[in-house]
């Protein structure tokens, strides 16, 4: 579960990205976070990953107070999260296969497990043929799918996806969202930040809409019609 309790995030330059935001996502839920560019969506994902610290308020993930984590505990906490980054964050010197294997290696997975799981997630995101390719030889959409494959390879309890379909054509985007839905059905809590209005409207999930650092809507259904 994910709990944002009265979170305010003010960046060093004075920008208030989130202004007293509170929401609760239960274990096993699928939630879209929508809103225009600069609304504060990525800031939410950064606070969950502990890439940024809240100015005030607290973030609880699976009962862990993220703000209270020690430097030493951080890696183990982060392994509970599958994260699809808006900027992909793939390791440039590693092949697609090795990038995904890396997420397993950090937690000490055996070669056998790696050999079984990596091809599996690669085929799920439709990139089996690109296993040996370096990230810089991939299109933006392909890199995004590698990032997703890496996020799901460890079957994390929570999966956070920041614009996982931002660079994809509509039909691939839809496939990816369906993939997230499948992962969610297996018990993973999914939080997906997106712009894809059509998909959100079609999937009929809970939608939290952010505008200018505040939640303006939180309900099951489509995108708000006005924005």
């Amino acid at each position: 579960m994910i709990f944002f309790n009265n979170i305010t995030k003010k960046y060093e330059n004075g920008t208030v990205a989130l202004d007293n935001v509170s929401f609760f996502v239960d274990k096993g839920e699928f939630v879209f976070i929508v809103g225009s560019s600069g609304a504060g969506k990525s800031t939410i994902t950064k606070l969950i990953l502990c890439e940024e610290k809240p100015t005030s308020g607290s973030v609880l993930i699976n009962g862990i107070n993220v703000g209270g984590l020690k430097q030493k505990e951080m890696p183990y906490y982060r392994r509970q999260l599958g994260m699809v980054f808006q900027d992909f964050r793939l390791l440039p010197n590693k092949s697609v296969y090795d990038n995904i294997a890396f997420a397993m290696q950090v937690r000490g997975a055996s070669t056998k497990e790696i050999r079984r799981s990596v091809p599996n997630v690669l085929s799920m995101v439709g990139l089996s043929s690109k296993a040996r390719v370096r990230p810089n030889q991939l299109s933006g959409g392909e890199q995004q799918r590698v990032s997703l494959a890496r996020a799901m390879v460890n079957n994390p309890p929570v999966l956070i996806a920041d614009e996982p379909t931002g660079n994809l054509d509509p039909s691939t985007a839809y496939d990816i969202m369906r993939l997230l839905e499948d992962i969610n059905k297996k018990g993973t809590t999914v939080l997906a930040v997106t712009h894809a209005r059509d998909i959100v409207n079609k999937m009929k999930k809970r939608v939290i809409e952010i505008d200018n650092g505040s939640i303006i809507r939180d309900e099951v259904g489509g995108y708000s019609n006005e924005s």
Partner: protein
Amino acid sequence: MNLNSFKYFVNEGVKSFLKNGLMSIASVITIMLCLIMFGIYVLFAANLNYVARQVEENYEIQVFIKDGTSSSRTAQLADILIAIPNVNKVVFVSKKEALDSWKAQFGENSEILEGLELDNPLRDSYKITVDSLSLVDETVSKINEIEEIANIKNNKDTIEKLISVTSVVKTVSFWIMVVFALVSIFIISNAIRITIFARRREVNIMKFIGATDWFISLPFMIEGIIIGIIGALFSVAVLSQVYIRFLNLVGDVFTGSISLYTFGAVAGILTASLAGMGTVIGALGSLISLRRHLHV
């Protein structure tokens, strides 16, 4: 750490080493130079000890017997001498034997000693070896009390001077070596720092995926150790050539009772100590820069 992780660390370390081509070569050369210094120190110190030990072992006092001492009294002196504390062994050298060995040293030019047989100017003597060099002064004064002793040849002061000089030289060369080691550690840590800086985005990504600092650091440390060990191998190669040549050069000086180690005798210890030192320098160098720069 399981075998998979170990393979991963070694793999990453090797890849990074190869990828950093020029930087790696520069680091290897630096560490090699440092280890050559270290190796010279090791060889020097080992031989110094070896020579000092031989000098001590071969140390002998020669006591000359006054002319005109009867042969029976001369023979008796052997028992008197052996009874003196600290005296280990007593060997009689007749004046004829002394002249013969002198002649032998002259070799072909021995004819200039021709005629000396008739009126041998040398004296009968005893060569005495002692148990402990440090007690020699007392031993010598005891020997001096014997009426028939003309004089005593004792080069203990020279030996002591030699030993004290060698200890100074050893201390100085030790500190020179320490300075070189520090310089190498600094250079390695700089090389690794540049690697980390070049890869800080990567390191950052690894952290967000849940890699521990150890997991991120080990490849860098292995890279440092690879640099150290390759540097060590090169330095052993260089030193073996230099040392063998050196032995050929000074071979004539060290004949007889005092000799230097052959290369074979020191190859093992030299390789082990240089590889050990290279590993320590490499690991330490990368550890220092990791501790300072990992938290990007």
